[in-house]
């Protein structure tokens, strides 16, 4: 496999978002155009400079991109729709990055936009029965893992609530977030019990929204006069799918570790070099597990990293400063690009009251149903 460091350097030159929100009458085109226009404005370029576009979505239907881009001027750009469940936006970003890295295009756009669709999953067409009626529901898997870890290493409901309270509170300072209320551990624990010790406020909401990122080559940055210091380099882009479960660890957690290690290797960094991480906290337990598998905390000590403030803004490596999936929201198509939006602003030092001091290196991580895991590392040159 070719390494990104052996290819042309690729930079994020502009990001934009339409706030995540609960299901509404807002048209997907309005949300998508808001994010794309925001990214164009942020980059300081016009739409005709964009040579190719990847649109990540899961619930809109076929051929969502072209009819949206039509409203920005029919430039004839290459346009491809990408579906990879929760990781659709991350995968759209990867396609854009690889196309520029390979030298095929100089400026490429990734946009994630989604409405709450019919949630139809291919696994429902597999015609393979499972012993449990909830066997393909991730929430149940993670709630079972939380129960196992409660006995195994003393992980408590309070620890899970602390993740959620942190992320809800980060989201309360984020104008693009779906949830805008700071929450305490007590409030999270008092919300509706869903499965095991997992409560509703420990789970990400369903919703809609849009996020976009424009990537470009060094040639394009020079030609277009993009401001020095503003472009953020993409130093790793890795995606793998899971292998059979060995022992008690959930395959998606084992997979997340492998993908993170591959990403560190590609970027030439260590876990301790990361200043900020946006990760897949669809359920609070995931953040504790991934901080361990990513090497931010020793195995089995994720809750201590959290309790000690290691993952807080201003801590050793802030985790989900956007509010994560729990607080900022998880509209599927946009989610991975919302992470790129957050990290880009962190690494530029433009993140306001959610700024991680001195942030230089960040990682965006998503899981897509199935499951696949994808990670991107962004670096301030």
């Amino acid at each position, binding site marked *: 496999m070719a390494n990104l460091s052996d290819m042309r350097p690729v930079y994020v030159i502009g990001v934009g978002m339409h706030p995540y929100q609960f299901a509404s009458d807002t048209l997907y085109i309005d949300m998508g155009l808001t994010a794309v226009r925001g990214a164009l404005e942020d980059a300081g370029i016009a739409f005709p400079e964009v040579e190719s576009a990847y649109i990540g979505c899961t619930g809109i239907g076929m051929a969502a991109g072209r009819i949206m881009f039509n409203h920005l001027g029919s430039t004839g750009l290459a346009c491809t729709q990408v579906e990879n469940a929760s990781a659709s936006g991350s995968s759209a970003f990867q396609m854009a990055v690889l196309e520029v890295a390979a030298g095929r295009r100089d400026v490429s756009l990734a946009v994630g936009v989604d409405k709450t669709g019919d949630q139809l999953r291919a696994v429902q067409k597999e*015609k*393979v*029965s*499972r*012993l*449990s*009626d*909830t*066997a393909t*529901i991730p*929430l*149940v*898997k993670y*709630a*079972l*893992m939380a*129960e*196992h870890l409660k*006995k195994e290493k003393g992980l408590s409901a309070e620890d899970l609530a602390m993740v959620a309270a942190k992320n809800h509170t980060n989201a309360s300072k984020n104008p693009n977030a779906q949830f805008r209320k700071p929450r305490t551990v007590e409030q999270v624990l008092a919300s*509706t*019990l*869903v*499965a*095991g*010790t997992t409560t509703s406020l420990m789970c990400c909401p369903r919703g809609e929204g849009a996020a976009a990122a424009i990537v470009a080559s060094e040639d394009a940055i020079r030609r277009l006069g993009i401001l020095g210091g503003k472009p953020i380099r993409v130093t790793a882009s890795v995606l793998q799918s899971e292998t*059979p*479960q060995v022992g*008690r660890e959930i395959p998606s957690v084992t997979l997340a570790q492998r993908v993170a290690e591959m990403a560190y290797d590609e970027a030439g960094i260590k876990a301790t070099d990361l200043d900020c991480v946006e990760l897949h906290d669809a359920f609070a337990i995931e953040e504790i597990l991934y901080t361990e598998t990513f090497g931010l905390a020793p195995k089995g000590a994720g809750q201590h990293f959290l309790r000690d403030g290691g993952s807080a803004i201003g801590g050793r490596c802030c985790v989900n400063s956007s509010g994560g999936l729990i607080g900022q929201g998880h509209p599927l198509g946009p989610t991975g690009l919302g992470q790129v939006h957050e990290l880009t602003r962190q690494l530029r030092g433009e993140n306001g009251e959610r700024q991680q001091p001195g942030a230089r290196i960040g990682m965006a991580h998503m899981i897509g149903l199935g499951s696949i895991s994808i990670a991107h590392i962004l670096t301030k040159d």
Partner: protein
Amino acid sequence: MTALEKPDLYELDGTGPGLKLIFGRCAACEELHFPRTGYGCPRCGARPENVTAEARAGQATLLTFITLHAKLAPGITPPCVVGEAEIAPGMIEEVMLSGGAEQYRDGMAIVARAEEVERDGETRLACRFAPKEEV
């Protein structure tokens, strides 16, 4: 005779409500897998004609369990209990447990048995695990 809800996964073992689980055995890699599907061996990729059904006693070791408080799937009526169980050496599956959580503890032996459920207005026999000593 009431029909089984998922006859591709289990069969009555002839001792009242007891169930056997239907695994797949692959002739190419000799490995066991569950569930058996019509697609072949998920371990080595061998074609379906290499896989034969192998009914094994519905006995398992319960590893972890939780109570579901919300209706997360159409077929369930909360509160209900689901768990992870080792149904054969090294093979961990999510299973549905009979009754309330108070009867269960980690590491206990559980057995598969048929329990009546309503599906689209018809009664079906579903697989629910219960503590071994109770049966």
